[in-house]
């Protein structure tokens, strides 16, 4: 029975990529904590992962009744996940919506999840190695 490595890793490969992209977005937020008119952004991880792993998300989409129609999924469903703007709790007078504490918390949470996903992938590889070497 041939093993497809992509399906063997399951959702974790896509999750790892999304986590690293989210780290980048959060790093940009923290770097721009003092930039006037900068609006904090984030990835909705749940819907982005659903889109990346091919599952139907529960959002509202345009109906495609003809072959020429462009579906709303195909617009955002690419390599880059959809970036959303954070709803500010207390925006500052200069138009900046970065909440440093919130971003730090999100960054820490994202890092822990990244490491958890990494542990899952690593365990999958170890299981594969055990199967290959038979020890």
């Amino acid at each position, binding site marked *: 029975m041939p093993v497809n490595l992509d399906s063997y890793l399951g959702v974790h490969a896509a999750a790892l990529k999304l986590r690293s992209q989210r780290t980048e977005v959060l790093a940009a937020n923290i770097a*721009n904590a003092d930039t006037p*008119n900068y609006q904090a952004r984030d990835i909705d991880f749940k819907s982005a992962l659903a889109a990346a792993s091919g599952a139907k998300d529960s959002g509202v989409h345009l109906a495609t009744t003809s072959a020429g129609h462009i579906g709303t999924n195909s617009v955002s469903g690419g390599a880059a996940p959809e970036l959303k703007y954070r709803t500010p709790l207390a925006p500052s007078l200069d138009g900046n919506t970065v909440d*440093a504490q919130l971003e730090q918390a999100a960054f820490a949470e994202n890092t822990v999840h990244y490491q958890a996903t990494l542990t899952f992938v690593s365990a999958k*590889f170890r299981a594969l190695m055990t199967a290959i070497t038979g020890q």
Partner: protein
Amino acid sequence: MSSFKIFDVAGSGMSAQSVRLNTTASNLANADSVSGDPNQVYKAKHPLFEALRAGSGVNAASAGVSVRGITENQTPPSARYEPGNPLADSNGYVYAPNVNTVEEMVDMISASRSYQNNVEVMNTAKDMMIATLKLGQ
């Protein structure tokens, strides 16, 4: 690999905050540099930050921060009557810079904290990448 961009982002944040610390240091150092000419007196300097956008459209991720320029505070300097000062003008006035030292100290703390935040981001990103490189070992 896209993770390398985090170093650029955090690095741009660190460099922007260090420019801000530099202007604060310059403002504090010159807080008492009086002059006999109101046009020659030192003016408080502040950096102007701008987000660097990578790509365009709704999904354009920001790729850090840049210092667009240094602005000078245009508030008129305060005049002090000091006829004994060798720098005083013909009416006996010297002009003090429009530097608000309390504001500058607060700005310094804010810049230093933001700098530390960016350092922390860089450290975490580095640890994440090292962990990824050790994958499968």
